């Protein structure tokens, strides 16, 4: 910003001396603050965009699974049991419980919390105190709690109906995402759950944060103790395949090395039995995502919700030739496929879509209903869709979560939709507040906000903005380097004179189209690339301070780049194949999976290249690959760091 000329200065001099400081300083400060706020907004927007893109990629994965099923025949030749493992239903019997837990003993040396069954309120406090001290609950108790919860949840309807009354308020919390500190902060401000202090938790309890299993234990024990006074709604992350990508699976397996697999198996079912929503006083509907124009509350009240195992497991496609006698005409498997379980174990496509809509949709200002291309599932719904839906169902308000909001909550659609998000500092320290809502008698609402602060005292705005901004830029750079080849190609296409430089407009165009991210590129450009005095961009400087570490020197850059870009998807697929959770898959499994992956995603990677890579990954030459090691090998080096980051929070 240029300092202005002296003519204005003399005019100011004529003002009284005291007035000067009072008028000008606030203006200066406000300008400074405005610039900080803009940077903060830019950082947050970048996070949110990249975050949503990752979720969109999940739906690509879902298409991949469909594709696999269609190409079933080929797979079956190679590995007959593979498809069953992926798509078969787990047998739902309870003999499993005794076999499962009966053999586990809690050793004398165990220093964590010990619980008595049947549970009482003491159990809850003991557990919370233990978690505060970073203790881990023994797998025996975890499994007992999970089985109990499953049994209790089976009795619940798809939507829990509760009522307010003059003596107690209902507290509604949004996404927690494994952030135990936030839950404990809520409890300390608002009290523990009890018959006099009812709560509704609106989904996304797990993934991303490091204490997802502890949060689940607290919520499930409270649910077992207080029944209808502790309502749990399913979120899009209460889904075993999402967990594989976003960290919950890893958390469980690392905290419970011996029994983790069992815990995950039971959890798969408990998640599927979580109710879909809560309705207060027949007026307020609480669901995790939102609605679409076709959302049919009646239908949702009656579907068999436990058949929705995962959003990434699409319903089995219909086959008209092999007719089925089932009355409801549920999905039928293609001929020749022998899946365990019968057709009636699956939801119809329509039912499946209804559930996706309520778990994944987002409200927007634009009228109408559009596919949610950002997330890859659900839709964007406008204020007209909301009005119509609420009127049709004689409701007054929709409370939902699913989106991080800087103030912890946000009201939109004319006061008819409220978003509540309870994980403060979600993207980065200082990025946002958390909030909860208290509903009183006659559905009056009160909003409460908070922010978990670390040991250091609350930092001034400019420091927080710097942190948010630099984290966002980091993540953006990692995205960029994962698409380096495509980006360079795009830049070169625009660089007619082969000078190595293009205009700002051309650069922004390439970035947006190649990365598929709708971001303020011109504002971000100063952090990403060098501009010369004429305003032209030296595009190769995009990649100057960041590169992907090559696990094997001879491997080609394009292959490495591809593996880096898809490493999250690959992680899920490997985890699915690795049904015994050993961390190992066989070379054949790797081969067949990789071939299918490439053909579906249209990747042109020569087989021999991948084989070579895999062979080198098979360090002990026993024909199996430790895929965690394999994937860890693909990480990005930020030149300006001393340490290299292998997995960022969001990736």
């Amino acid at each position, binding site marked *: *910003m240029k*300092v*202005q000329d002296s003519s*204005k*200065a003399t005019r*100011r001099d004529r003002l009284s*001396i*005291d*007035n*000067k*400081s*009072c*008028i*000008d*300083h*606030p*203006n*200066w*400060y*406000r*300008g*400074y*603050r*405005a*610039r*900080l*706020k*803009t940077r903060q907004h830019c950082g947050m927007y970048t996070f949110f965009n990249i975050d949503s893109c990752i979720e969109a990629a999940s739906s690509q994965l879902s298409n991949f699974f469909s594709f696999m099923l269609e190409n079933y025949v080929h797979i079956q030749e190679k590995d007959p049991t593979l498809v069953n493992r992926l798509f078969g239903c787990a047998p739902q019997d309870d003999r499993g419980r005794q076999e499962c837990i009966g053999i586990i003993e809690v050793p004398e040396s165990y220093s964590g919390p010990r619980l008595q069954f049947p549970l009482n309120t003491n159990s809850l406090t003991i557990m919370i105190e233990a978690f505060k001290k970073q203790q881990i609950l023994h797998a025996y108790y975890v499994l007992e709690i999970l089985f109990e919860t499953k049994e209790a949840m089976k009795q619940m309807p798809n939507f829990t109906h509760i009522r307010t009354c003059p003596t107690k308020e209902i507290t509604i919390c949004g996404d927690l995402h494994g952030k135990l500190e936030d839950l404990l902060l809520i409890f300390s401000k608002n009290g523990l759950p009890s018959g006099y202090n009812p709560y509704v938790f609106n989904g996304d309890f797990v993934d991303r944060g490091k204490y997802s299993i502890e949060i689940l234990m607290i919520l499930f024990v409270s649910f077992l103790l207080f029944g209808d006074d502790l309502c749990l709604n399913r979120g899009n992350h209460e889904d075993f395949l999402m967990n594989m990508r976003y960290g919950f699976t890893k958390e469980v397996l690392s905290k419970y090395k011996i029994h983790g697999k069992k815990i995950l198996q039971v959890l798969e079912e408990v998640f599927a039995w979580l109710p879909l929503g809560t309705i207060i006083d027949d007026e307020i509907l609480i669901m995790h995502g939102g609605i679409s124009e076709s959302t049919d509350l009646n239908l949702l009240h009656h579907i068999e919700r436990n058949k929705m195992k995962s959003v990434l497991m699409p319903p089995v496609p219909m086959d008209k030739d092999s007719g089925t006698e089932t009355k409801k005409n549920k999905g039928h498997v293609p001929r020749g496929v022998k899946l365990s379980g019968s057709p009636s174990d699956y939801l119809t496509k329509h039912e499946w879509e209804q559930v996706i809509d309520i778990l994944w949709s987002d409200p927007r200002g634009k009228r109408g209903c559009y596919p949610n291309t950002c997330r890859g599932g659900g839709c964007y719904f406008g204020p007209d869709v909301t009005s119509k839906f609420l009127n049709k169902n004689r409701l007054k308000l929709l409370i939902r979560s699913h989106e991080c909001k800087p103030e912890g909550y946000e009201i939109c659609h004319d006061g008819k939709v409220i978003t509540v998000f309870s994980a403060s500092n979600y993207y980065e320290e200082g990025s946002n507040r958390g909030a909860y809502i208290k509903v009183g008698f006659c559905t009056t609402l009160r909003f409460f906000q908070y922010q978990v602060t670390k040991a250091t*005292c*609350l930092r*001034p*705005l*400019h420091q927080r903005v710097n942190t948010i901004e630099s984290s966002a830029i980091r993540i953006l750079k990692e995205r960029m380097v994962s698409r380096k080849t495509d980006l360079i190609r795009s830049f070169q296409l625009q660089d007619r004179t082969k000078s190595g430089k293009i205009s700002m407009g051309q650069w922004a165009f390439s970035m947006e189209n190649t990365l598929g991210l709708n971001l303020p590129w011109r504002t971000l450009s100063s952090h990403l690339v060098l501009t010369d005095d004429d305003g032209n961009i030296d595009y190769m400087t995009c990649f100057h301070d960041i590169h992907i570490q090559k696990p094997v020197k001879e491997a080609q850059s394009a292959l490495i780049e591809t593996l880096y870009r898809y490493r999250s998807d690959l992680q899920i697929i490997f985890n699915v194949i690795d049904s015994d959770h050993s961390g190992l898959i066989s070379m054949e499994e790797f081969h067949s999976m990789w071939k299918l992956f490439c053909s579906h995603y249209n990747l042109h990677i020569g087989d021999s290249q991948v084989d070579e890579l895999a062979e080198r990954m098979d360090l002990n030459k026993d024909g199996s690959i430790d895929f965690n090691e394999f994937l860890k090998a693909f990480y990005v080096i930020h030149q300006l760091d001393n340490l290299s980051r292998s997995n960022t929070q969001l990736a």
Partner: protein
Amino acid sequence: REIGTIIRSLGCCPNEGELHDLIAEVEEEEPTGYIRFEKFLPVMTNILVEKRYRPIPEEILLQAFEVLDPTKRGYLSKEELIKYMTEEGEPFSQEEMEEMLSAAIGPESNFIHYRDYITMMVIDEN
């Protein structure tokens, strides 16, 4: 209300009164609380071209602080600063005051070294 942030982040320094007038100029006929970009763009372009609402130079701001610090200590105490900021002109709101203080004053001390503070606000733009 976000218009103020946008205008200021572009380098302009209107005071609250001027900002109010500006908003009235670009707002819709029926105040919906929203502003259309098509209406805003020409007005904003004009402001930038005419170099309106430029901030006062850094030296003047420094002089202003020195006036409040006649003994030339190089700093002001928190109380003194609050007193001057809330007394005249266009005062800060409570929230702005707290934020400004946390930015200007270190957590342990009670004094604002105004030279450093001004430098921080200026450097930040580049």
